[in-house]
């Protein structure tokens, strides 16, 4: 599997020094009515690294985040390239229409900001900001984020305990309104295996059975799904 980050490490040590360190406040608001975010990863890194890119295959580390919310793999890679990273500022799930705030001190050269978190309940959906150029001018900046699909797991929309591990199909948890049960499964195929804009949950209107364990009046969303407010000090 192609990784966007690992092949780029060699160039990192020589790329820094062109931009100076910065002090940021980063506020993330979940704009959705019924979708939860798993612990957020907020990272400033160099311009030649990317956590994800639409149209490319997800790295194993990104898939682990998108399918189960695990930040371990991404965090290890980011540490390896001397990124400045803050994990889990909300101290757990970020509930619908709530916000969390974190501060980030960036080293010289780490002039791109990326943010990811898995969206629950989805199979491999995540909210993402990819390599936003951190402005050098002090001020407050607003960014709206879209929902992506990692392209690594079929969107069967079945809630299955323990399915957060890569390779195990299913949605690992559905916080909030209790999901349905015994759905047949929306699909077993993931035809687009590259990172793409999420097509949204389908859901159905049956508590038991039907295609999906999700509810079509609760678990859908429209983009954007998050708002990020960055204050450059």
């Amino acid at each position, binding site marked *: 599997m192609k990784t966007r980050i690992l092949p780029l490490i060699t160039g990192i040590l020589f790329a820094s020094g062109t931009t100076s360190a910065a002090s940021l406040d980063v506020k993330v608001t979940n704009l959705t009515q019924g979708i939860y975010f798993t612990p957020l990863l907020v990272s400033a890194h160099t311009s030649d690294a990317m956590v994800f890119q639409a149209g490319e295959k997800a790295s194993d580390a990104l898939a682990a985040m998108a399918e189960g919310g695990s930040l371990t793999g991404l965090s290890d890679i980011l540490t390896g390239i001397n990124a400045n990273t803050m994990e889990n500022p909300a101290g757990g799930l970020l509930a619908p*229409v709530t*916000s969390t705030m974190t501060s980030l001190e960036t080293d010289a050269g780490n002039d791109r900001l990326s943010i990811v978190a898995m969206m629950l309940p989805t199979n491999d959906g995540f909210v993402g900001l990819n390599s936003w150029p951190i402005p050098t001018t002090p001020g407050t900046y607003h960014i*709206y984020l879209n929902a992506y699909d990692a392209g690594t797991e079929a969107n069967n929309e079945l809630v299955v305990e323990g399915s957060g591990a890569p390779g195990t199909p299913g949605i690992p948890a559905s916080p909030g309104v209790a999901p349905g049960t015994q759905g047949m499964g929306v699909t077993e195929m993931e035809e687009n295996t590259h990172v793409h804009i999420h097509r949204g949950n389908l859901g159905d*209107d049956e508590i038991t059975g039907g295609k999906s364990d999700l509810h*079509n*009046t609760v678990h*859908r969303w*429209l983009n954007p799904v998050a*708002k990020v407010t960055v204050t450059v000090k």
Partner: protein
Amino acid sequence: MKLFRLTLPAACLVLAACGSDNDDNMPITMPDDDMSMVDEPAPADPDPADPDPTDPTDPTDPTDPTPTTVELMITATNLTYAQPLSPIGVALHQEGQFWQLGTPASDALEVLAEGGDNSGLLALDVVQSQTSAAAPLAPGQKTELTLTHDSLDGQKLSLISMMVNTNDGFTGLNALDVSAMTVGQAMTYTTHAYDAGTEANSEAQGTIPGPADGGTGFSAEREALNKVAMHPGVVGVDDGLTTSVLTSSHKFNNPLMTVTITRTK
């Protein structure tokens, strides 16, 4: 028309607490948006309906010599396929917000979002200047509104409208800072779809005031959720909500409107 038959209790109008970083307007200069800021010269033709404040025969206010010094022209386009937008209301205010994500809707917002009646929001104590369109804005259509005030100092602009083929969906601009606008300057925004969180999105017969149903607009009881959020979209009978009166034609996506604000005086 069934949409706007509601009467408002006059004493129920409270604004959400102020917090300017919670507004959620979407300027067209967003880095992920390919449209660019519009900066047009002021239109040449004055509004012929505008009364002349110096006209001694004008009976409206013969004692007040203060001329109108600021005029904003607001142009709004309905970008949806089949969601008429209830008569658009615009207001200038220095404090407050018409809504705040994550908190319960005010009673006045609930009335707008469930029934399309903007009169409660426009009558809020904080509102210093306001106007409303006379009729709903049909899909694909454009409307023009004019706001006047003696000064823009500290003024924010809010614009509000219901997607009438929804249970409690609305769109608009929330406390947008217009205080620094210069004569001739124009700003263009797109608007998001919000859900007032006051009425469940059942899409059931009798619950939607728009032409898709002709049902009830405002009702005082609130759903358990009771928080303003971004709208998740309508489902419709074609997409698996078997009890819905809506069809695929009533679906929408962001953005809902394009709004251009031009300072003309």
